[in-house]
């Protein structure tokens, strides 16, 4: 299996919120990278995890499956999962797979950080 073409950097906003900047290709192969980022972002005090898809270049169905797995882990820790930076194409994929019913999509970072309605 090829190494995943993706980077995920974590930025913290106070004690309770973290943003994961996703750049590259989201496929099933990047699960270790995403889970490492989740470990770094999802400490016990984190209640809100924001995924920034502004640098997303490619995503297949394996990538969507991996996001569902991440969602389960976040729910287990009672953490909210939010997303922003999705292009129209990827926003439609979230809607098609009905992932948008569990991961709230925002237009920009500011609204995602504060949970302001889309």
């Amino acid at each position: 299996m090829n190494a995943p073409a993706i980077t995920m950097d974590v930025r913290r906003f106070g004690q309770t919120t973290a943003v994961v900047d996703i750049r590259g290709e989201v496929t099933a192969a990047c699960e270790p990278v995403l889970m490492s980022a989740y470990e770094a972002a999802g400490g016990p005090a984190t209640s809100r995890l924001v995924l920034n898809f502004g640098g997303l270049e490619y995503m297949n169905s394996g990538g969507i499956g991996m996001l569902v797995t991440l969602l389960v882990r976040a729910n287990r820790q009672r953490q909210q999962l939010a997303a922003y930076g999705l292009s129209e194409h990827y926003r439609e994929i979230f809607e098609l797979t009905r992932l948008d019913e569990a991961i709230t999509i925002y237009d920009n970072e500011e609204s995602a950080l504060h949970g302001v309605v889309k």
Partner: protein
Amino acid sequence: MAETAGPDKVATAEQIGLSAREAAAPPRDAAQTAPPRDVGQAAPPRDSASWARKVDRLEVDHRSGVRGTNVAGRRLTGPVQGFGKMWQKTYRMDAGSRITPEQAIATWREHFPEFWPKGNRFAGALTGINPGDVALLDLSIGGGVKLSTGVFVLYADAESFTLMTPQGHMFAGWITFSAQREGDTTTVQAQVLMRANDPLYEVAMTLGGHRKEDKFWAATLTALGRRLGLPDPKVETRSTCVDSKRQWRHSRNVWHNSMVRSVLQTISAPLVGLSRLVRGMNSSTNG
């Protein structure tokens, strides 16, 4: 020194008996035709041709050989919308070194219904598996009853394709069929990410449904393996409970349960046929 069979040692199409279309399966991404675009317009993502267009409710055409009920007007359901525990089940087969992942997936996409175990029907588009297609299913559930439901082709590229289920299906989720090169060999797999759609299905899955599903996909992969020329295909099954919690807020999914509806449709079929006959006779008399 042992000779290794890398990609350059892959057998020709003639050697493994592939059709012209399967043999012509292009490498990943080359299969996707990029639409022409204006200068200055942002390039579409290279996965754009692989995903189905967004749909709110499924529309279906008539397909012969299946009942075709319980699909039209239904919404798609992912693992988020399901009721039961979430499972990830993986069925893997070593397809050997002679075939490429692209050839394996092309064969699977083109002949998908032919690999299903006897007694089950998959009525898809004549062109094979393509993003946005809806296929109608009649699944054998015993006692002469067929469970009528369907699937939606969510994603398809040269190395994988994914089917998503509608409301009323046994499970809410998707199945991804993929192939990849691992060292010298090609591995083919079906991976299910699912929750039972409602409490009735959850009970049914616990009381033998999971075992039946495991047998179903193992038999499917074995049939694919034989088509690919494997003398003795072996399928490895791995199940992981991703989330042991049940989502009680989705218990009302039972309203759409296709198993219950299929049983009722089977029982009422003679009456429905009779009433149609009477209506037809009346209208011809009146006309």
